[in-house]
């Protein structure tokens, strides 16, 4: 009976799915795991139109870790900034969250968001064009251009106004720095809420910040106990496997201290995160 059922099932099995194209896999990501339950889905956020028909005369104006920034003109001839970013499953989820935040923020001191598109394996985000670039570009010329106190007060005041708005919405920017402060040709100062360039890093940093503090503490402990020769024996094991100094060395000190302080889980989580290799005595289950 069972064998017959299996046979029937095999015969009734649906045809194999078509080979996965990029669009299919993206759609799968959208539906399978929206970033947060409350945020709108990617289908609502990402426009299905072809941006090449809407924006013309694209000219590259910048390049960052996450992608490239272009200057383009929309149909009515207004300047816009187009940020093109390479997509993967992890970055997409974070970027969608960022877009939903940007889209729902409207303040004179926050860069305006216009639209976003998926073009092949890239996400294009169209934003207000800020002709003056970012504050970092000013600070890089510190040897020749120094800001006066009233100018610094102006920049701080404009930033604070945007921060007050963000905070009143119970949001935290978490990445305020000169790279995210954009300047307009008219002297306007705006926050770019889009943190595409450092999303994954910040994400990691926030999530591992508690572990990071642990690392710092143990680093300090290591410096102390190393004097007594206690740690030497344990570090040798690690050094045999790799003689790289730096973070790896810190990691070895971390596993010693973890051994001493019974805080196994945290130390191991960090060790795993940073070295991509489980520390001694760790079994992956």
């Amino acid at each position, binding site marked *: 009976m069972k064998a017959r059922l299996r046979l029937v099932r095999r015969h009734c099995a649906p045809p194999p799915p078509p080979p996965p194209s990029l669009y299919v896999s993206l759609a799968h990501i959208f539906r399978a795991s929206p970033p947060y339950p409350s945020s709108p889905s990617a289908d609502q956020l990402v426009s299905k139109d072809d941006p090449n028909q809407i924006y013309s005369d694209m000219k590259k104006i910048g390049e960052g870790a996450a992608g490239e920034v272009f200057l383009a003109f929309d149909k009515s001839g207004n300047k816009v900034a187009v940020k093109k970013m390479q997509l993967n499953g992890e970055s997409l989820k974070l970027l969608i969250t960022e877009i939903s935040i940007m889209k729902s923020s409207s303040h004179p001191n926050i860069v305006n968001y216009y639209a976003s598109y998926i073009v092949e394996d890239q996400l294009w985000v169209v934003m207000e064009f800020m002709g003056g670039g970012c504050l970092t570009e000013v600070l890089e010329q510190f040897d020749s251009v120094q800001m006066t106190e009233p100018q610094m007060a102006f920049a701080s005041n404009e930033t604070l106004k945007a921060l007050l708005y963000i905070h009143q919405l119970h949001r935290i920017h978490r990445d305020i720095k000169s790279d995210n402060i954009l300047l307009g040709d008219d002297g306007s100062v705006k926050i770019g809420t889009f943190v595409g360039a450092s999303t994954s890093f910040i994400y990691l940093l926030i999530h591992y910040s508690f572990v990071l503090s642990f690392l*710092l503490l143990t680093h300090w402990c290591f410096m102390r106990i190393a004097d007594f020769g206690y740690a030497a024996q344990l570090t040798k094991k690690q050094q045999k496997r790799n003689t790289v100094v730096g973070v790896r060395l810190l990691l070895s000190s971390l596993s010693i201290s973890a051994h001493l302080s019974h805080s196994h889980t945290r130390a191991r989580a960090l060790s795993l995160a940073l070295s991509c290799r489980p520390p001694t005595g760790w079994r992956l289950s």
Partner: protein
Amino acid sequence: MAPELIRGHDYGTKVDIWSLGIMVMEMAEGEPPYMEFPPLRALFLITTKGIPPLKEPEKWSSDFQDFVNQCLIKEVDDRPGAEELLKHPFLKRACSPEEFVPVIEEARAAKEAASRLQF
């Protein structure tokens, strides 16, 4: 990175105020504090020693120094929020947007001059 963020404590909107303070120091001195140390060491120093005072205090008004110090208070509860900081006397001296334009233009000119020198 604000001390509470490094320590892994609960954090809130005031981490942005801390970052603003660091950015203002960068505007004044050209680079953020602890740049001479490796990143992990810098994070360690922030949690243990806090932020060092401005390098040339005589160059800056007391309002400016107080504003920076307020932003960089280590204790979260003592650090003012955005609303409170917006009332700070230092911000009353803010210039107009038109007076800010020269900063952008001078920086652009300096950048172009530097790139011309390279060629």
